[in-house]
């Protein structure tokens, strides 16, 4: 049998390795360097300066001053507290709703394909559009939520205590299908013979769930939690559209105001790096748990 050299094999398929590199790999690397790596490095530099993009003044090196000011600012800590609360509510809600829906759809039910597709619709919508129509749904005068719940003119978004829950509910509605989709993939991968064995052993539904289903789906559920946590930390669009209550000012909203309304470019770059460090730290904790779950 004749062995072909790599170049020759690629050529036999129509494209040489050199052509593939020139056509696909180099443009991708250039694109990543220009639009990802360079801005990342540049913003790291601006984080240590007093640069303001709204002026033509030169940026001056200020060392750690931006980081010191941010960490001493009580507003920033309030933004982090609000965001942490928001992440807890949304991710917990999405896991409960998403996993519950996946459990339902894992059974044999009529029109399963159509129901699954319909349930996926919310996450396909633009967050800005979702924000706008939920604003109408929440309206105390003509919103259908109050109408169906018989809550009169209850103020969902004008009430500082309720606004965060109202915004979180929208996120849960929008992203539970994502958790559902991943959970469904995990559930369908659980070997059927384990359930058969549990049935023979007369194991109850709770025992089966906690000893078979949950441990086997846990790794993929953990991946869903990692993704949702990272995304929830960055929530901007629908939260910005729905409410301007100080109690719903998430870190992404504060960051936007600092960068594009106040034009504190250096300070906002430092803020963005603090957020990045927090997200990376939390993700690492999750990944550690994910590895443990996989090992089990």
């Amino acid at each position, binding site marked *: 049998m004749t062995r072909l050299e790599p170049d020759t094999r690629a050529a036999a398929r129509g494209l040489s390795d050199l052509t593939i590199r020139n056509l696909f790999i180099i443009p991708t690397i250039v694109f990543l360097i220009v639009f990802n790596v360079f801005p990342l490095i540049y913003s790291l530099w601006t984080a240590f300066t007093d640069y303001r993009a709204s002026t033509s003044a030169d940026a001056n090196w200020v060392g750690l001053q931006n980081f010191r000011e941010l960490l001493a600012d009580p507003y920033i800590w309030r933004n982090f507290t609000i965001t942490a609360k928001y992440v807890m509510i949304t991710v917990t809600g999405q896991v409960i709703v998403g996993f519950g829906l996946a459990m339902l759809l894992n059974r044999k039910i009529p029109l399963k394909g159509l129901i699954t597709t319909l349930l996926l619709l919310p996450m396909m919508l633009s967050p800005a559009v979702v924000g706008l129509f939920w604003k109408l749904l929440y309206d105390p005068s003509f919103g259908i939520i109050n109408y169906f719940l018989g809550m009169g003119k209850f103020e969902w978004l004008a009430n500082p205590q309720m606004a965060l829950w109202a915004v979180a509910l929208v996120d849960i509605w929008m992203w539970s299908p994502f958790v559902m989709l991943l959970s469904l993939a995990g559930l369908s991968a659980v070997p059927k013979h384990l359930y058969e064995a549990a049935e023979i052993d007369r194991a109850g539904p709770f025992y089966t769930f906690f000893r078979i289903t949950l441990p086997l789906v846990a790794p993929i559920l953990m991946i869903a939690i990692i993704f949702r946590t990272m995304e929830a930390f960055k929530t901007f669009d629908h939260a910005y559209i729905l409410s*301007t209550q100080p109690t719903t000012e998430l870190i992404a909203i504060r960051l936007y105001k600092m960068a594009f309304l106040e034009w504190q470019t250096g300070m906002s770059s430092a803020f963005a790096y603090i957020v990045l460090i927090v997200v990376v730290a939390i993700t690492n904790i999750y990944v550690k748990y994910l590895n443990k779950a996989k090992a089990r």
Partner: protein
Amino acid sequence: MQRRYFRLLASAAAFALSAPAAMAQELTIFWAEWDPANYLQELVNEYEAETGVSVTVETTPWADFQTKAFTEFNAKGSAYDMIVGDSQWLGAASEGGHYVDLSDFFKQHNLGEVMAPATVKYYAEYPANSQKYWAIPAEGDAVGWSYRKDWFEDPAEMEAFKAKYGYDLAPPTDWKQLIDIAEFFHRPDQNRYGIAIYTDNSYDGLVMGVENALFSYGAELGNPDTYEVEGIINSDKAVEALEAYRKLYGFTPPGWSKTFFVENNQAITENLAAMSMNYFAFFPALVNPATNPNAANTGFFANPAGPYGDQYAALGGQGISIVSYSSNIEESYKFLEWFIRDDVQKRWAELGGYTAHAKTLESEEFRNATPYNEAFYQTMFKVKDFWAVPEYAELLIAANQRWYPFIVGGEGTAKEALDALAADWTETFKKYGRLK
């Protein structure tokens, strides 16, 4: 054949070289997307007919306006020759080198007197009282009020009001009456509410709304020369003003927690409120039966006086500036010379633009042209504005952070909110070296 080819090439090169010269006959003005920008486009079409220079008014939604403008400035882009920028931008745009200094042009054409003095002070001059001018007042605007004439003139309502408050029901002349009338018409069980005010704290909505109370109660934001704010923004009068605004919030329709010009016009068109605060620029929609079913029953009044006789309104509107990075600066100057002409300003007002031109404003013709022009005329000579320093956005956000929880959430007291704001603003002014 070769000679013909070279001739063709030479013609093409000549055409290409002549293109920039032709392009100089085109000017671009950048503004926000709203009706006055359409009126300006109509006006500048007449400039094209007169001079052959084509002028395009390019617009972007209000929410993007500042970001898009400053992104272009920062890039030193020449996409826009002129910009009709917000009054608060004067500091940032002039100190940043983005606007051409129009001081000589201003003095040469005596614009300090040609335009209404308040508009010159707030749309054109920076720093305050420096005699340095960066814009020509273009779209004058301020906050005024619309009200439901049919509700006010209903004999049963008039009788009930007089019995309760001891004076006749009529458009309020002071803030006490404003609060009384709002309270009188506030009937949630009838789906009818007292008043619509600005509460949107995402940019300057809430702050512009509160300013109407602050300035009319005789309070000030601070000292514009020394940047001292302690004891000024948190003065007793300011406390009273903030309390009055909070009181008004109690008479707004449900869910009135993020409202600006769109919602406040809707309060009148949808039969929600008896009175509604809004910029004059949005009043044309209220006299148009196609957009307001209550057009025939909608009246207008200027921001009422406060308890100590002061009467001011928050300034809106914009001045037109030449962008430093424009490649058509000379042509832009010629356009401005045309724009400030008496006949052009009169035409600008006829088309629907709110002129700041003193002579046009004072004319009977202008004052009687619409149901709200008289109120506009009265207001434009007693307006005050927010800080125009480059760090205005930080000051604005601090005001939103301190006022909103008190007004909408009922948290703390007016005094606490203002004391905290005075501390925030002092810190900001110290940070930028304006205050020692």
